[in-house]
C-alpha cells in the first residue's frame, strides 16, 4: 500500500517537476525569511541575519537535488537522461555510431539465423511422448564396414523379445519409395513407409482421426490398411472425417484408410504421406533371408528408469547369443543403440556447430569493432569526462552513462540484427538444400529471441565497459593536463587498441581459413569425374504398380514399350532404365558374393547390385573397358550374365581376367545358388555421391532382373528438359495410371549431390567475407585513431627533418607488426580449431598448405590497405599546424 503510494507520488514527481520545484522554492524562501527575521529580532543587521540564515540552512541546491531525487523515480529519470545523452552522442558522431550499429546488426543477425537452425534441430525435443527414452537400434559389422546400418527383421524380432530393458521395439522400412494414388483427379505419387504395428504406440503419438495399427498388423492376415498424413487428407480428401474406413486405390489395389495422423507428425521424413503395416508373412520368420536381408530401422522405447548403459549391456548379451546361434548370418554382426534424437540430428550437428562457431567469431569481431569505436569516442571525450569528474560528477554516474551509450548501440544493433536474422532464417530455409536439416519449421522463437537479447547485452557490456572504466578512473587532473589540442590517448587505451587489432586479425583469419578450407574442398569435389557424362541426360523416376505388373514379362513389356517409343522421339539419342540413379544418395541393395573355384574364404562382401537395360552404358557414356555390355539377347531364357565395374575387377579379380568368370551372390554357394557369367567390365561410376568412392558393383540386364522401380535415362541432342513433355505423352499412352516421381537433368542431380557442401561453403564463405570486412574496418579505425593521436608528434618529426616516407613507415610498422602477431595467432588457432572440420572436407587436410598461405596473405594485404590510409594521412601532417599547437 505504502509502496504504491510512494510510487504514485514519485510518478507525479517525474512529470510535474517544474510545479513541485516552484513550490519547494516557496517553502525555502519562507523558511529563510522566518529564520532571518528571528536573527534580526536577536539584534543582527538584516544583511548579517540573512547570511547566517543561509549558512544555517546549508547547501540549498544540494537539498533541492535530493528533494527532486526523492520525488522522481531516480533510476528511470537517470536512464532517460542517459538515453538522451546517448542519442545526442550518437547524433554527434553518426558515422561512428552507424558503423557500430551495422557491425552489430551483421554479427547478431548471423547468430540469430544460425541459432534458429540450431535451436530447431538440436535443442528442440522430438515431437514424441517422452522422447528421451527412445533409441534407434543399428547393426554394426566391422567385416562389412557397417556403422549405424539398417537391421535384419529377424534380428529385430529377437532384440524385441529378448532384451528386458526394452518396453517395446517398433521398426520401419526406410526408402520404400513411392506409390501411385489413383481415384478422383490425376494420379498422385505418394511417399509411403511400412511400419510395424506398434510403430505409433512406441513413439507415443495417437492418430488425429481413426486409429493407428495394432500389433497383429505387423503380420499379414488382416485387411490392407493405411494411416495417412494430415497433408494428404486435406489435399486429396478435403479433410472429410468420413475418410476413416474409406477404401482408396493405391498402385491399382484397394486399401482402407484406418486413420489420419496429426499435422505435427512427420516421421521418418517430412515427405511421408502414408504409413502401411509391414504385414510380413508369418512363415518368413523362419526363412534365412529374414536374417540375411538388412532393411529395417528398429526404434526401442526403454522401460522407465532404465539407463542407456543398462539397456545396451542387455542388448550386447542378446547380440552375442545370436552370433553363436546363427553363424551363417550373424558372424561379427554387432548392434548399437543411439538416442533417437542424436540419430536424427546425425550429420547435421557438425555443420551446424561449425556455423554457430563461425557466427560467434563474426560476433566477436563485431564486438571488437564496437569496443574500438567506444574507445575512440571515450578518448575523444577524455577532457569532457575529466571536467565532469572535477566538477563533482559521480564515477558511477559516468560509468552508467557510458553503459547507456553502449546499450543503446547494442539495442539498436540488436533489433536490426534480429530483423536481419529473421530475414536470414527465412533465406536460410529457402536456400537450404532439401534434406540438409532434419526439420522443416525453423523459426525465430522466444528461445532464439532470448539468446539474441543475451548476446546483444553481453556484446554491449563486454567490449564497451573497459574504455569507460579507464576514462572514469583516471585522475581528472592528469586528463586535464594532458588536454590541450590533440589530447593523447592514455597508455592503457593504446594497448587496448593494439589488442583489438591483433584480436580482429586473428579472428578474421581463423574464420577465413575455415571458409578457405571448405572452398578448397568444394573445388576438388566439383572436379570429381562422376564416371559418366551428365550433359544432355534427363532422368525420370517412375514407379509402376506391382499388383498390376505382377509378372516379370509384364514389367519388361512395359519398359520395352516405353524405351522403344521414347528412343524413337526426335532429338532423343538413346534411352535406358536403371535401378540406381547415380549420385542420388543410394546404391540399391548389397550382398556377399563369390566366384566359382574360390575357396571357402574367397568370398567378397558388400557388392552393390544394379539392373540396367542394354542402352544404359551408351546413354550415360560409361566406357566398356573389357568384354561387352548387354544386348537384347540377354533374355531370361538366355545365359545369366552380369557386367562388373572396374573397382570390382581390380579389387576382387586382381591380375585375373574377369571375363568368363562365374559368380554367385552367396558367401558359401550351395546347390540353390544361381551362377552368372561376367561378360564385361565397365568404368566406375560414383553411385551414391561425388564424395563417395565408387563401390564394387555387379550390374544385371533388365530383362533378367526386372524391377518395378526404375529410372528412365534419356540422352538428348539439345535441351534434355525439352523432351520431357513428349516422354510424358508416350508413357501416358502406354499406361495412363503411371505417375512420374521426379524429373531432373543429370546435371541437376549432380548439383544436388553438391548442394550440401556448396551451401555450407557459401554460408561460411559469406561469414568469412563479412568477418574480413569488419576486421578491416576495425583495423582501419584503430590505426586511423592512433595516427591521428600522433599527428602532433609527426608534425614535429617532419619539422625536425624527418622524411615523409619514414613517417609513413612509422605508422605502417606498427600496423604491420600488430597484423603479423594477429596472423601468427590466427594460424595457430586455425591449426588447432580447424581439425574439427576434417570430416566435412573432401580430400583436403585441415592444414591444407595452399589455404594456410593464401588466406593469411589476403588478410595481410587487407590489413596493410587498412593501415596505409591512416599512415599516408599521418605523413601529410603539417608541421606548422603541429607546432602552432605547442
Amino acid at each position, binding site marked *: 500500500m*505504502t509502496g504504491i*503510494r*510512494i510510487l504514485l*507520488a*514519485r510518478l507525479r514527481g517525474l512529470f510535474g517537476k517544474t510545479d513541485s520545484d516552484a*513550490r*519547494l522554492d*516557496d*517553502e*525555502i524562501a*519562507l*523558511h529563510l*525569511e*522566518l*529564520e532571518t527575521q*528571528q536573527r534580526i529580532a536577536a539584534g543582527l543587521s538584516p544583511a548579517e541575519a540573512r547570511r547566517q540564515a543561509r549558512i*544555517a*540552512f*546549508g*547547501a*540549498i541546491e*544540494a*537539498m533541492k537535488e*535530493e*528533494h527532486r531525487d*526523492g*520525488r522522481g523515480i531516480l533510476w528511470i529519470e537517470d536512464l532517460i537522461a542517459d538515453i538522451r545523452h546517448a542519442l545526442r552522442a550518437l547524433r554527434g558522431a553518426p558515422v561512428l555510431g552507424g558503423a557500430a550499429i551495422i557491425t552489430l546488426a551483421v554479427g547478431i543477425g548471423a547468430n540469430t539465423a544460425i541459432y534458429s537452425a540450431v535451436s530447431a534441430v538440436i535443442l528442440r525435443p522430438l515431437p514424441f511422448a517422452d522422447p528421451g527414452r527412445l533409441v534407434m537400434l543399428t547393426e554394426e559389422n566391422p567385416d562389412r564396414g557397417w556403422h549405424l546400418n539398417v537391421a535384419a527383421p529377424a534380428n529385430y524380432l529377437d532384440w524385441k523379445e529378448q532384451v528386458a530393458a526394452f518396453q517395446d521395439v517398433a521398426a520401419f522400412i526406410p526408402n520404400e519409395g513411392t506409390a501411385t494414388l489413383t481415384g478422383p483427379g490425376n494420379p498422385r505419387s505418394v511417399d509411403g513407409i511400412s511400419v510395424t504395428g506398434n510403430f505409433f504406440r512406441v513413439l507415443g503419438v495417437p492418430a488425429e482421426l481413426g486409429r493407428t495399427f495394432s500389433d497383429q498388423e505387423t503380420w499379414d492376415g488382416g485387411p490392407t490398411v493405411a494411416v495417412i498424413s494430415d497433408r494428404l487428407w486435406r489435399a486429396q480428401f478435403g479433410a472429410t472425417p468420413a475418410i476413416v474406413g474409406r477404401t482408396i486405390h493405391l498402385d491399382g489395389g484397394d486399401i482402407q484408410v484406418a486413420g489420419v495422423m496429426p499435422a505435427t507428425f512427420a516421421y521418418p521424413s517430412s515427405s511421408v504421406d502414408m504409413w502401411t503395416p509391414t504385414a510380413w508373412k508369418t512363415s518368413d520368420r523362419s526363412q534365412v533371408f529374414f536374417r540375411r536381408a538388412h532393411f529395417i530401422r528398429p526404434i526401442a522405447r526403454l522401460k522407465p528408469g532404465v539407463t542407456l548403459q543398462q539397456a545396451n549391456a542387455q542388448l550386447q548379451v542378446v547380440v552375442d547369443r545370436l552370433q553363436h546361434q546363427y553363424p551363417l548370418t550373424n558372424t561379427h554382426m554387432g548392434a548399437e543403440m543411439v538416442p533417437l534424437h542424436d540419430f536424427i540430428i546425425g550429420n547435421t550437428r557438425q555443420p551446424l556447430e561449425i556455423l554457430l562457431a563461425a557466427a560467434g567469431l563474426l560476433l566477436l569481431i563485431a564486438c571488437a569493432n564496437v569496443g574500438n569505436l567506444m574507445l575512440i569516442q571515450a578518448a575523444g571525450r577524455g577532457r569532457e569526462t575529466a571536467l565532469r569528474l572535477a566538477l563533482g560528477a559521480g564515477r558511477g554516474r559516468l560509468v552508467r552513462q557510458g553503459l547507456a551509450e553502449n546499450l543503446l548501440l547494442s539495442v539498436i544493433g540488436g533489433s536490426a540484427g534480429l530483423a536481419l536474422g529473421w530475414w536470414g532464417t527465412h533465406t536460410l530455409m529457402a536456400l537450404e538444400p532439401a534434406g540438409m536439416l532434419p526439420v522443416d519449421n525453423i523459426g525465430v522463437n522466444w528461445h532464439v529471441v532470448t539468446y539474441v537479447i543475451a548476446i546483444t547485452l553481453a556484446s554491449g557490456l563486454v567490449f564497451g565497459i573497459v574504455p569507460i572504466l579507464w576514462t572514469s578512473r583516471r585522475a581528472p587532473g592528469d586528463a586535464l593536463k594532458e588536454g590541450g589540442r590533440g589530447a593523447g590517448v592514455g597508455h592503457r587505451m593504446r594497448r587496448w587498441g593494439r589488442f583489438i587489432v591483433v584480436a580482429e586479425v586473428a579472428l578474421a583469419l581463423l574464420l577465413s581459413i575455415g571458409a578457405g578450407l571448405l572452398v578448397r574442398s568444394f573445388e576438388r569435389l566439383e572436379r570429381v569425374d562422376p564416371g559418366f557424362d551428365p550433359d544432355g541426360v534427363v532422368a525420370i523416376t517412375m514407379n509402376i504398380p506391382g499388383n498390376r505388373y505382377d509378372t516379370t514379362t509384364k514389367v519388361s513389356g512395359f519398359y520395352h514399350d516405353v524405351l522403344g517409343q521414347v528412343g524413337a522421339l526426335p532429338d532423343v539419342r538413346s534411352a535406358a532404365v536403371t535401378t540406381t540413379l547415380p549420385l542420388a544418395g543410394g546404391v540399391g541393395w548389397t550382398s556377399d558374393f563369390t566366384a566359382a573355384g574360390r575357396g571357402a574364404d574367397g568370398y567378397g562382401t558388400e557388392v552393390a547390385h544394379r539392373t540396367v537395360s542394354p542402352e544404359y552404358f551408351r546413354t550415360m557414356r560409361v566406357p566398356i573397358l573389357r568384354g561387352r555390355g548387354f544386348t537384347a539377347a540377354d533374355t531370361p531364357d538366355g545365359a545369366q550374365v552380369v557386367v562388373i565395374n572396374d573397382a570390382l575387377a581390380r579389387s576382387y579379380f586382381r591380375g585375373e581376367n574377369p571375363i568368363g568368370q562365374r559368380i554367385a551372390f552367396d558367401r558359401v554357394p550351395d546347390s540353390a545358388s544361381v551362377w552368372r557369367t561376367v561378360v564385361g567390365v565397365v568404368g566406375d561410376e560414383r553411385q551414391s555421391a561425388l564424395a563417395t568412392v565408387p563401390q564394387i558393383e555387379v550390374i544385371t540386364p533388365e530383362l533378367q532382373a526386372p524391377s518395378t522401380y526404375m529410372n528412365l535415362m534419356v540422352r538428348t541432342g539439345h535441351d534434355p528438359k525439352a523432351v520431357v513433355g513428349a516422354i510424358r505423352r508416350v508413357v501416358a499412352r502406354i499406361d495412363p495410371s503411371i505417375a512420374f516421381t521426379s524429373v531432373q537433368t543429370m546435371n541437376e542431380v549432380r548439383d544436388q549431390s553438391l548442394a550440401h557442401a556448396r551451401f555450407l561453403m557459401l554460408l561460411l564463405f559469406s561469414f568469412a567475407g563479412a568477418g574480413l570486412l569488419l576486421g578491416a574496418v576495425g583495423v582501419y579505425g584503430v590505426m586511423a585513431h592512433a595516427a591521428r593521436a600522433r599527428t602532433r608528434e609527426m608534425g614535429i618529426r617532419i619539422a625536425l627533418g624527418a622524411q615523409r616516407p619514414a613517417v609513413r613507415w612509422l605508422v605502417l610498422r606498427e600496423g604491420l607488426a600488430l597484423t603479423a602477431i594477429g596472423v601468427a595467432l590466427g594460424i595457430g588457432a586455425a591449426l588447432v580449431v580447424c581439425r574439427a572440420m576434417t570430416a566435412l572436407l573432401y580430400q583436403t587436410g585441415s592444414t591444407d598448405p595452399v589455404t594456410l598461405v593464401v588466406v593469411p596473405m589476403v588478410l595481410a594485404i587487407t590489413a596493410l590497405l587498412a593501415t596505409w590510409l591512416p599512415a599516408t594521412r599521418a605523413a601529410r601532417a603539417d608541421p606548422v599546424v603541429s607546432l602552432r599547437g605547442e
Partner: protein
Amino acid sequence: MAASSSDVVRGTLDLLVLRTLTFEPMHGWGISQRIQQLSHGVLDVNQGSLYPALQRLEQKGWIDSDWRVSDNNRRARYYRLTATGRRALHQETVSWRRYVATIDLILGEV
C-alpha cells in the same frame, strides 16, 4: 551555533518530526524551531535534510500537507500528522525506546 548543540542522529529525524507534529500542524521552519525548543537547544536540525525528510514522510502517508496562510500572512505549507502517522509514531517510539534501553544496557557495563 551553540557549542553544546549536536546534529540529529541519522534516522531519528523522522521520529522527531512526527513527534513535533502531534501538537499541531506546522510548516517546515516551525518544525525545526520546535525541535530545537523541545531539546532545550541541544538538537540542531540540519535544515537541508528536513525538507527531504518531510517529503519522505508524506510519501509514506504518515503526514499530510496543505497550503495555508501563516500567522504573518504568508502562504506556507503546513504539515499534519495522519492517523497512519500517529500509529507509526507509536511503533517507532516503542522500538526507539527498546533500542535506547538496549544500548544503555550495554554501555552500563562499562
